[in-house]
């Protein structure tokens, strides 16, 4: 494999992440079912998390732990640990939000008897 392919892969990671985000946003904005909206939001979250991890990734770097290579002082690069930490936090938060959202969807379904967001418009203007 040559370098060009690796470069392409590099961008492909970003591209995939952004694509996943866009798919999620599309789902949240265009789908009428509450469940699909929640899924869309969650998917776009995942895409964003991928993007963040990709930003922190360093080609050829090691895991950001006290690995022998790092301690030896040899010229080994370390992947930036901060984005990974951030993503961990963001995943947890995303999980929480999704859980609340699903709970609300259940209540909405009980109250309105439908999952179509266009029909849940008691509050307006």
């Amino acid at each position, binding site marked *: 494999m040559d370098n060009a392919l690796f470069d392409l892969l590099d961008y492909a990671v970003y591209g995939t992440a952004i694509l996943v*985000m866009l798919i999620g946003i599309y789902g*949240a904005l265009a789908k009428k079912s*509450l469940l699909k*909206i929640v899924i869309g*939001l969650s998917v*776009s*979250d995942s895409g*964003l998390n991928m*993007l*963040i991890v990709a*930003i922190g990734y360093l080609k050829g770097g090691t895991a950001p732990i006290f690995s022998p290579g790092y301690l030896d002082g040899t010229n080994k690069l370390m992947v930036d640990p*901060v*984005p990974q930490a*951030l993503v961990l*936090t*963001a995943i947890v*938060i*995303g999980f*929480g*939000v999704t859980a*609340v*959202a699903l709970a*609300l*969807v259940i*209540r*909405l379904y009980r*109250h*309105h008897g439908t999952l179509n967001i266009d029909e*849940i418009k*008691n*509050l307006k*203007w």
Partner: protein
Amino acid sequence: MVGTPVLFIAIPLLAAFLIPLLGMIWKELVRIVPGLVLIYLLILAVNLLDHVMVHGPIIEIIAGWAPPIGINLVFSAFSGFLVTIMIFLGLLIWLYSYRFKKNVGYEPAKKYFLLLMMLITGSVGIVLTGDIFNMFVFIEITGISAYGLTAFYTGRDSAEASFKYLMLGSIASTFLLLAIMIIYSQLGTLNMADIANRIHTMNPTYKIISLIFFITALGIEAEIFPLNGWAPDAYSEAPGPVGAAFAGIVVKASVYAIIRYIFTIFDVDGAFNFLIIIGMLTLIIAEMAAIRQEKLKRMLAYSSIGQMGLVLVAFGFGTEEGVYAALFLMLNHAIIKSLLFFSGSYLVYNSKDKLIAEMNGLGKKLPITSFLFALGAFAIIGLPPFAGFWSKLSVLTAAADKNMIFIMSLILFVSLIELVYYLRVVNRLYNSKEKASSIEVKKPTANALITMLVLGGLILLIGFYPDVVTGVLHKASAALMDKSQYIHNVLSINQ
């Protein structure tokens, strides 16, 4: 000193998780503990604010890592002032909702106070933190507890409001995270002071894109038009005290975040004019929507959105006078709008369909509540000699000093609209022509009454003697304007 800034976050968070446990010991503890915590925090806040006024900001390092690597909390005159308002308001909200309605049982009360403590933790955290990712976490904490509080009443359409709030809230968090990552990928740091120090080295395109993302994300929380679709619903469906908490605590924290980004972190001058533009848009459209509302709480919600727009306009002047005016507005808004929400929710409670049209002659049945509502309405319109007048005067003075006559006349025109819809309600309260529906009158409980009276007293106090607050406000606005001092203070701190 009674403590350090970290207690503002640690104690309420701890209390929030202890509440269900304490409830097992004695059910009344669920209601009492939050109050004790907030009283302690208020004492702490006042003490620290007093200290900060004289000795300069307190910067606290968390977990032993000095900035720019570790997380730090900054309790300056500016952030300290906001924290004090929030805690004070939190205390009043606690007092008001101690027995807000006689029929609220143990289970709902437990959840309510748990979420309220979380809400306060998150909002105070937003204001105190010196780290942008930490701020993201606090915004999410605030958000999740706010969704929960919005959906508090099961019988109404509150789930719908909460879902809208959640939808926009998660979009906001996406944008916020994106913006944070843009900053991080360019500068390799998350510390606010460090970013501010090095922001001029950043590629201008990335800088502006990240600023736009920040404004969008925080604008959703701060109810900026057109990002505020959730706000009227959430305000009108949440319990009355929660409405006050949104207006007085959550939105203030978000506005603080926007201001911190624009004033301290970024060095984009156009952002000030942008603030004026979106602030004016928010103000005008919200007030125009407010005048046509049939429901009282929804009207208050739009009015609250409009006030926040005005705050942003005042910040957008970018002068110290402007900041002073904006802070004064925030303070008054916290006091007056809370009073309106508190008394308004009893007025609503006494009308069947929550319609303004049903409130004819309620002034006779609920004399004190109606009187306080009228006082709040007069104050928020900016009639002297009540508190609102001084902030309106300072906003207009700041505008005139920047020679923005057009903005000034727009603000005054919008005030006229505001005046009309508030007076319509007050007129109804004291209109004896039509008989109000003969349902049983639900009088406010003693604690609710005390809270409202305290707020009413504050309105009069600030109105007659504004000196009680102007000193703090001047210090706070000076602290915000002095950007290099902030950077120096944070970065020079050592272990």
